[in-house]
C-alpha cells in the first residue's frame, strides 16, 4: 500500500509447512522495493509458517485446515478482490520462482489477462522426462489450441492475472488437484480471457525434494488428462456483468 497512484499488485504465496523457506522468499520480494504487497496464505500449516511470514513483513491469512493450493489461491483472489488490487501474481513459497522475474511476468498483463511464467521457453534449464513430460507437452498443445497462442508450460504456478482474471477466478477456481492450473485456465480461456506466456528460469528448491517416481508421474499423466477433459466440457463463466460494476 506504499504507492497509491500506481497500480496495486498483490503477490500471493500459498504455503503449507514451508516455515524453512517462506521467510526468505517474502523478504526477497519485499526487498525488490517495487511496492508489491505480499499475502501469504497459510494452508493449515502445523509449523511456524504463519509467524515466520508475518515476521518477514507479509500479510498472513491462516486457513483453519488444509485446502490445497487451489483453496489457498481462491482465498488469495477473494482477498485481492475485496481490497481492490489491480493485479495478482502467484509465487511459490519454496523459492523456486525467482522474485526478480515477477516484474517480467507482470509485464505480460499489458497484452493479456493472464500471464504465465513458462519454464521451458528457452530460458533456464528446467527439465522433466517420462510420463510427466508427455503430460505437460500434451496439455500445452491442447490448451495452446484453445487459446490460439503458443503456450509451452500450462502447469506452471508462476502466473499473474489482472482484475478481469480475478473476477473470472472468483467465479471458477476449483480447489481439486490440478484444478488450480489446468481447469481454471481452460475455463478462463473459454470465458474470453486472453493468455500469454513469459519465459522464466526456475531456481532449485530451497527445501523439500521433488518426486521422480515413474508411477507417480504416470498417475499425474492420467489425472491431468482427466482434469483437462472435464474442464473442456465446463460452461463458460459470465464475467461480462461483473466487469461493469467493478
Amino acid at each position: 500500500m506504499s504507492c497509491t497512484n500506481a497500480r496495486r499488485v498483490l503477490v500471493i504465496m500459498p504455503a503449507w509447512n514451508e516455515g524453512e523457506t517462506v521467510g526468505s522468499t517474502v523478504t526477497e520480494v519485499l526487498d525488490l522495493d517495487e511496492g508489491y504487497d505480499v499475502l501469504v496464505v497459510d494452508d493449515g500449516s502445523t509449523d511456524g509458517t504463519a509467524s515466520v511470514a508475518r515476521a518477514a513483513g507479509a500479510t498472513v491469512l491462516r486457513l483453519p485446515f488444509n485446502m490445497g493450493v487451489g483453496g489457498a489461491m481462491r482465498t488469495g483472489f477473494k482477498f485481492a478482490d475485496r481490497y481492490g488490487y489491480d493485479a495478482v501474481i502467484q509465487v511459490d513459497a519454496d523459492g523456486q520462482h525467482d522474485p526478480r522475474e515477477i516484474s517480467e511476468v507482470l509485464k505480460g498483463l499489458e497484452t493479456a489477462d493472464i500471464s504465465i511464467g513458462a519454464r521451458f521457453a528457452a530460458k533456464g534449464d528446467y527439465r522433466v522426462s517420462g510420463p510427466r513430460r508427455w503430460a505437460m507437452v500434451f496439455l500445452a498443445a491442447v490448451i495452446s489450441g484453445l487459446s490460439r497462442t503458443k503456450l509451452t508450460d500450462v502447469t506452471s504456478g508462476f502466473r499473474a492475472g489482472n482484475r478481469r482474471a480475478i473476477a473470472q477466478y472468483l467465479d471458477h477456481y476449483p480447489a481439486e488437484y490440478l484444478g488450480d492450473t489446468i481447469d481454471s485456465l481452460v475455463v478462463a480461456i473459454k470465458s474470453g480471457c486472453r493468455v500469454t506466456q513469459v519465459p522464466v528460469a526456475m531456481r532449485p528448491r530451497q527445501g523439500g525434494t521433488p518426486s521422480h517416481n515413474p508411477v507417480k508421474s504416470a498417475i499425474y499423466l492420467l489425472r491431468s488428462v482427466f482434469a483437462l477433459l472435464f474442464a473442456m466440457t465446463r460452461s463458460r463463466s459470465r464475467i461480462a456483468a461483473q466487469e461493469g460494476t467493478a
Partner: protein
Amino acid sequence: MGNTFAPFIFALVMVGIVLELVRRKVFREKYAALWLIIGASALVLAGWPGLLPAVSKALGVQVASNLLFALCIILLLGVCLHLSWELSVVEDENRTLAEELAILRAAVERIEVELSGVEQKVTAAAKERLPLPEGSSPFTVGNGPDIFPSNNPLEGK
C-alpha cells in the same frame, strides 16, 4: 403366516424409527424421504405377500425375489448418490466459510493492533491531564493482543 409377520414387524419398526428421528429433529426431512419410501414399500410388500409374485409375473421377472433385490439396489444407489451430492455441497460451503474466516481473522487482527495503538495514545493523553481511575478508559478492548503491556488499562483487573 409366520414368515410374513416378521418382515412386516421389521418394516414397521424401521418406519417408526425414521419418523421418530424426524420428529426429534435428529434427521432432516430431506434425508428421511428416501428411507420412508423404502420403509413404506417394505410395509406394503410384507402386508400383502401375494403382491410381489403377482408384480414379478406382470413384469416378466421369473424369480420374485430377484425383483425385490433389483429394487433394493436401485433404491440404495439413490440414497448413496443423494448423500454424495449433499456432502459435496456441504464441503463447498465449508470451504467458502473457511476462506471468509481467514480473511476476517486477518482483518480483525489488524484492527486490534490499530485499536491498541489508538487506545495507548488516548490513555497517555488522558494521564497527562488528569490521572484516570484504573480500568475506566472508554477505549478498553476485551482480550486484545497485549501489545503495550506496561500501559494496558486492563492490567489492573
